């Protein structure tokens, strides 16, 4: 069952990722990406990261991609001329080599077997979301604050740039 769902989600992820690259129209690419995000979220569920799966759907699919689609439709660019760069053949060649390398690397690598869950005496096992909450607000509190700052800056930056009053030379 698990293997089956992995094959499904993995295959769908790869396929929609390829579609992103292949589609000429950016709108279609964005839609394929939506599919990929959804399937990645599914994969997270298999991996018992339910909170992340939710975040993936909410943030990526719900926020980021919508933003994309807004922009794509706002700009409404007609794709003219080549879709691919001139260097595409080189890239494909390099990609094949890289794929072989990675495959070789993975086949050569030794992965540790799955560790047995550490029983925690006296403490009731927590759900995924609670655990993330616990760690995020204790151990990673400072990076969390920084992340918020990053978002703030991104917010400000995006506004400043999108306003377009700045004069580029």
């Amino acid at each position, binding site marked *: 069952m698990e293997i089956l769902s992995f094959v499904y989600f993995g295959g769908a992820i790869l396929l929609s990722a390829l579609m992103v690259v292949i589609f000429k129209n950016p709108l279609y690419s964005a839609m394929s990406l939506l599919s990929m995000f959804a399937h*990645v979220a599914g994969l997270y569920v298999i991996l018992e990261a339910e909170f992340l799966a939710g*975040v993936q759907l909410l943030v990526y699919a719900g926020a980021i991609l919508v933003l994309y689609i807004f922009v794509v439709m706002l*700009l409404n660019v007609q794709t003219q001329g080549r879709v*691919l760069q001139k260097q*595409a053949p080189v890239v494909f060649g390099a990609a094949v080599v*890289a794929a072989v390398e990675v495959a070789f690397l993975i086949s050569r690598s030794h992965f540790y077997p799955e560790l047995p869950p550490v029983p925690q005496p006296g403490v009731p096992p927590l759900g*995924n979301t609670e655990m993330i909450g616990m760690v995020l607000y204790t151990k990673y509190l400072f990076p969390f604050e920084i992340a918020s700052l990053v978002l703030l800056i991104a917010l400000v930056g995006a506004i400043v740039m999108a306003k377009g009053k700045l004069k580029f030379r």
Partner: protein
Amino acid sequence: MVPLSWYVGLSSALFLVGLVGVLVRRNTLVVLLCIEIMLNAVNVNFVAFSKYQHVIDAQILVFFVITVAAAEVAIGLGIIISLFRLKGSVNIDDFNILKL
């Protein structure tokens, strides 16, 4: 039980697909989308290892990656809009004004 190496393989393949997309597409918007693919490839890896090693911290990292991705998209799209205003194009090879 799915072996860990499958996940690694999946994430590598996804990463490569994203990378190829970044390198070959002329449309800046699509390049940005492909960057998201690459980020997701990394995230998949993180989550897989988190499960197999029982380390919750990896998921926190994914959380941060998503945060940064959000920020990046906001800024990136802002830049693209500015560039579009400037050049009337979103083709990446039109943006070579840094070159002498």
